[in-house]
């Protein structure tokens, strides 16, 4: 049984679709952030998979993933800061109620 690239790509794709689904349906902003992390992680995986299977002598994909993880950490920290701030002013983190700034 040969494990080719597609074997890893399909779970990654499903993970991405789950993230998309969660991002669209969840109301809690933190849950949305979790969905976002899923999508991000699936993309990271894809980088690594393509690097490994298609360009085994190089390491661009891996380095890209490394930096992406660092940026994801930064982004999460900032997003959580914003969420806590929002929570402090309106006492909830329901994204559907947070449309007062639309006009």
């Amino acid at each position, binding site marked *: *049984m*040969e*494990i*080719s*690239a*597609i*074997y*890893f*790509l*399909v*779970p*990654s*794709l*499903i*993970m*991405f*679709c*789950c*993230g*998309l*689904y*969660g991002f*669209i*349906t969840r*109301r*809690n902003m*933190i*849950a949305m952030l*979790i*969905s976002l*992390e*899923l999508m991000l*992680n699936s993309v990271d*995986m894809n980088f*690594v*998979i393509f690097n*490994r299977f298609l360009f*085994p002598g*190089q*390491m*661009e994909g*891996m*380095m890209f993933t*490394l*930096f992406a*993880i*660092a940026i994801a950490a*930064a*982004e*999460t*920290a*900032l997003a*959580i*800061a*914003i*969420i*806590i*701030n929002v*929570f402090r002013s309106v006492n909830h*983190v329901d994204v559907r109620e947070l449309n007062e700034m639309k006009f």
Partner: protein
Amino acid sequence: MESVGSFILYVIVSLAIIVFSVMAVTSRKILRAATYLLFTLFAAAVVYFMLDYQFLGAVQIAVYAGGILVLFVFAILLTSHPGNNSAVLGSKRRILGLIASLAMLFVSAAALLARASLFAAKPQMEEVNMQKIGEAMMGTGANQYLLPFEAVSILLLACIIGGIVVARKR
């Protein structure tokens, strides 16, 4: 030809990824969702190990599982009232989400399955050891990444300050 052991490992890992991702986005308890995310991330780390990227797997575990998840847990504990489940989803919204994600799934799967090269066997690769990674990250030549490395360090600094400024009490 792969060994049976690694194939079993592959099955376990891919099932973990799929199941825990689905559960992470459908669980009504937000803390549990975070936990499922943690498992998914672990599974992803295992994938990295399977693909001979030990350092990346270690980073995945350390940063994601050790750093980000802790942040999530703190935020969840700060913002959610105990025992408060998120509301049951309305069917309309669920359908919308399903449409989008399934459409994404089919389109991307069609694109993936149409590529014959993705079915090739895993090529041989010399191990990416720590020395190579260190040289790549600290050098300024071709395929070396000092500049992004420094950029990320500035980004993290800005992020620290931004996090303080945004979340601080006024």
